[in-house]
């Protein structure tokens, strides 16, 4: 093997480890005879993922690899860590549910790892082609995860809807990439920028390229009006899958958005930032208003995740504020990932035979039935609302700062008002958790040690990073540095 090939492979060591983990899990799954041994698969997956997490900083140096298709920088490192953290949490919350619902665990964890691999590929893409491959590698396993509960018609519906609209949006995005290539003659981000600066937005093809890319990525991130797949897909999918797919693909979509808009399309920033600001305002408002009307908590969280897309998009739109804008996106994506995954996963406590565990009534009095779980749920909800001392609060502060700095005062005000709307429906869940007595005749809750571990860890992080956010924020600033003003 030549040294350059070795160098290239060393650069993607974390990705290789994740791949090997997925394969190992599949193999070990076939060797494990007794169903009682299956929870070990989750721990093997977690071990592999953690190994990938620590391998990144050890082996990889910044730079481009694979003839310029792959770029490793602080941005890559940050998102690798985000995806792995989310994958670890997504794995830990699943085992008890999978056993109850007879979903094959080996395939579940392996699929989740492959999806994570796709997301990581997006983070290290330096080229439209790598990015598109990563996007597909991330999304296709998610379709599978959504439909993994084969005998459940909701799960089938979720998978099909997600697949059809996902495929549609991929096609649009790819078409957009083709136009970009047609206009600029390049697929490498670094070359697109200078080429597009010459054409400007006055040329029709550039406009079409920009529009198609915006719409395609808008679908992936669930930006209104490209969000219609979200509620059904999130509601119907198995809850652990929902928890993961509500955060990781969104994080990946924003990794792509930052790479493309802040990186490649910088010369057009004046034009697209206003479009994104408008989309952000519409997205957060529509998501929150519709979430207000939901009695099903899973659907409510689905709509609220659309609202969070809007908040993150606001930070992207504040491009003019420089590095703090991208850093706000990164911080918010991580914070949102942990708290939203946690919030969905809290519903798993209630997901026992005979119920889908998702209506407000079923949550009544959870504080008495399972005090720890209810406390974690309340912490996630308060964090999603954006009340201190939680990470959700500081994340909003970090978003509002560049938005104001970029002169988008109206957007900051809309954001604040939206947070009040959101408080109404998030805190209504807390009302049911704490202020109602449990209904008669509810099925008994079953113990779920791994789920409790994951939720305890997430809730702890939500509060600790909420009180001491500087380390993570400094890291996000560092990760944003190579991105902006390239």
């Amino acid at each position: 093997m030549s040294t350059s090939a070795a160098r290239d492979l060393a650069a993607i060591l974390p990705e290789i480890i994740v791949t090997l983990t997925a394969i190992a899990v599949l193999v070990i799954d076939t060797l494990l005879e007794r169903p009682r041994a299956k929870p070990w698969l989750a721990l093997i997956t977690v071990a592999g993922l953690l190994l990938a997490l620590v391998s990144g900083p050890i082996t990889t140096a910044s730079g481009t690899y694979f003839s310029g298709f792959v770029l490793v920088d602080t941005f890559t490192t940050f998102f690798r860590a985000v995806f792995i953290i989310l994958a670890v949490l997504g794995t830990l919350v699943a085992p008890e549910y999978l056993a109850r619902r007879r979903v094959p665990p080996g395939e579940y964890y392996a699929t989740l790892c492959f999806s994570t691999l796709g997301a990581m590929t997006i983070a290290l893409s330096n080229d439209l082609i790598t990015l598109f491959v990563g996007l597909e590698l991330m999304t296709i396993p998610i379709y599978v995860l959504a439909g993994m509960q084969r005998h459940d018609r909701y799960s089938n519906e979720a998978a099909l809807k997600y697949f059809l609209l996902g495929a549609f949006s991929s096609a649009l995005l790819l078409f957009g990439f083709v136009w970009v290539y047609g206009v600029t003659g390049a697929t490498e981000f670094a070359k697109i920028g200078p080429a597009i600066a010459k054409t400007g937005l006055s040329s029709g093809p550039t406009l079409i390229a920009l529009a198609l890319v915006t719409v395609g990525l808008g679908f992936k991130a669930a930006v209104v009006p490209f969000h219609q797949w979200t509620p059904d897909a999130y509601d119907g999918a198995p809850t652990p899958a929902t928890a993961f797919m509500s955060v990781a693909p969104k994080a990946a979509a924003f990794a792509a958005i930052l790479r493309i808009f802040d990186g490649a399309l910088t010369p057009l920033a004046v034009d697209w930032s206003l479009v994104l600001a408008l989309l952000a305002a519409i997205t957060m408002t529509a998501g929150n208003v519709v979430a207000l009307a939901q009695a099903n908590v899973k659907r409510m969280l689905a709509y609220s995740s659309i609202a969070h897309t809007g908040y993150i998009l606001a930070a992207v739109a504040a491009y003019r504020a420089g590095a703090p804008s991208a850093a706000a996106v990164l911080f918010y994506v991580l914070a949102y990932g942990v708290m939203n995954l946690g919030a969905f996963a809290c519903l798993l406590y209630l997901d026992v035979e005979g119920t889908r565990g998702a209506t407000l009534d079923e949550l009544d009095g959870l504080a008495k039935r399972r005090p720890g779980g209810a406390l974690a749920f309340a912490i996630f909800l308060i964090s999603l609302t954006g009340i201190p001392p939680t990470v959700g609060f500081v994340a909003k502060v970090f978003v509002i700062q560049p938005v104001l700095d970029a002169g988008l005062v109206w957007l900051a005000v809309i954001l604040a008002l939206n947070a009040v709307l959101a408080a109404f429906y998030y805190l209504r869940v807390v009302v049911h958790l704490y202020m109602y007595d449990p209904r008669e005749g509810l099925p008994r809750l079953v113990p779920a040690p791994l789920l409790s571990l994951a939720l305890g860890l997430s809730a702890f992080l939500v509060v600790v990073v909420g009180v001491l956010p500087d380390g993570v924020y400094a890291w996000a600033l560092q990760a944003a540095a190579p991105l902006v003003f390239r």
Partner: protein
Amino acid sequence: MIDHILTLLVVIPLLGLVPLFVFMRSAAAVRQVAVVTTGVELLLSLYMLTRFRVGEAGFQLRESAAWLPSLGIRYELAVDGLSVLLVAMTTLLTFLAVLYSTKTITHRVGEYMASFLLLEVGMVGVFLAIDLFLFYVFFELMLVPMYLIIGIWGGSPRKLYATLKFVLFTLAGSLLMLVWIIAVYLASGEPGARTLTLPALLAVRDRFSADFQFWVFLAFGLAFAIKMPMFPFHTWLPDAHVEAPTAGSIILAGVLLKAGGYGFLRFALPLFPWGTQAWLPVLIVLSVIAILYGAVVSAVQRDLKKLVAYSSVAHMGFVTLGIFVLNAQGGVGAVLQMLNHGIVTGALFLFVGIQYEKTHKRLIADLGGLANRWPLYTAFFGVFVFASLGLPGLNGFVGEFLVLLGAFRFNPPTGPGGLTWGPLAAIGVILAAVYLLWMFQRVMFGVVREAYRSLPDLSPLEVACAAPLLVLTVVMGVFPQPFIAIIEPSVQRIVALATDPALALFK
């Protein structure tokens, strides 16, 4: 000698949470932990008072550390004459509220006491923080525990409506304030030199243009006006008070409402003199409306607790009037009025609660003749009612008198001055006498109902809860000078900052 007193004040209730969670299963142990924790906190705040140097206007006992170095946001705690007594009042009222709750709260005691300790962190922190960001964090931290206290241990099924209304009103104001706090941060300097620490902000306040201050003051004012609450943002208050458990009402009226008035004096006035001037006429009018409206509405209440709640609206009207007449008498009166209202209205809610515990009736029409059976109760309650209506010799008088004095001296460049607003506000004092005495007469005198004949008078615990408040009511009424000596220098400094002649506001 104890170092880091202020940090300890913030941390002690948090430390109390540890044994609380360990003994969560035992209600008795939880009660002891909560009483001891709030008791230690009270003693520490009294020790802080002994360390406070009276007569200095600036910040004392300051503690400072980097918190968010990437943004230049700092952990800054300090006290001055404005805040030091409010901190002591907070720890006292929390201790008494927890003490009283040991008897009245019987279900989910662990969660209840945990909420109170968390609430105390927020309340103490609000009065100690001199970094705007830190202040905001503590300001919001008070929200969730009070939300739980009203929602879980409140009265009727309407409590859920009341508690959600309380939270949404407060959040609507504070989130908009957050946007403008960040705007202030961005305006405070070039990247790398930005700050939200009060002394540093005061040094750069020339950077805030008049136009900018107009909007900032609007956002800050809205948040504080909702918290106080000022007319017409007061509608959450009666609902929240009626539904809250007694201890919750004591804290809500005694401490939480003060965060608004304190916020005006601490941040809005000194930082944004132009904004203050721009909104002054509106705020003065709203204050006088609150005084009159609160009094009139109190007079027609049938529910005892609602009556006390609406009287708070009127009393807070005196506070804002005192603040916005922008002179030292008014400012000192406003701070005294905040302290007095905390003590007296806290006590009134306590006594309404005690009475409700015994009779299970809150409508004035259902009560009557209690004086015949409860001499001790009547004596205590009477003193607090008289203090609330501003009888000379009790603390309520001093604050209202100073506020009215300040109001009469109010002399704005344009529009109606002190001779318009002073007399109007004075009518509020008379109305207060009317509705409070009328209430007292209907509840305490007359023929005693058969059902109440066998009910016992105050228990030792109830006396223990009320006695410190009674002593303070009398002491602050008879010897207000030591308290004024603490408050005055700092308030004078704030008023001077808000009316700096260099700003050419007063020609």
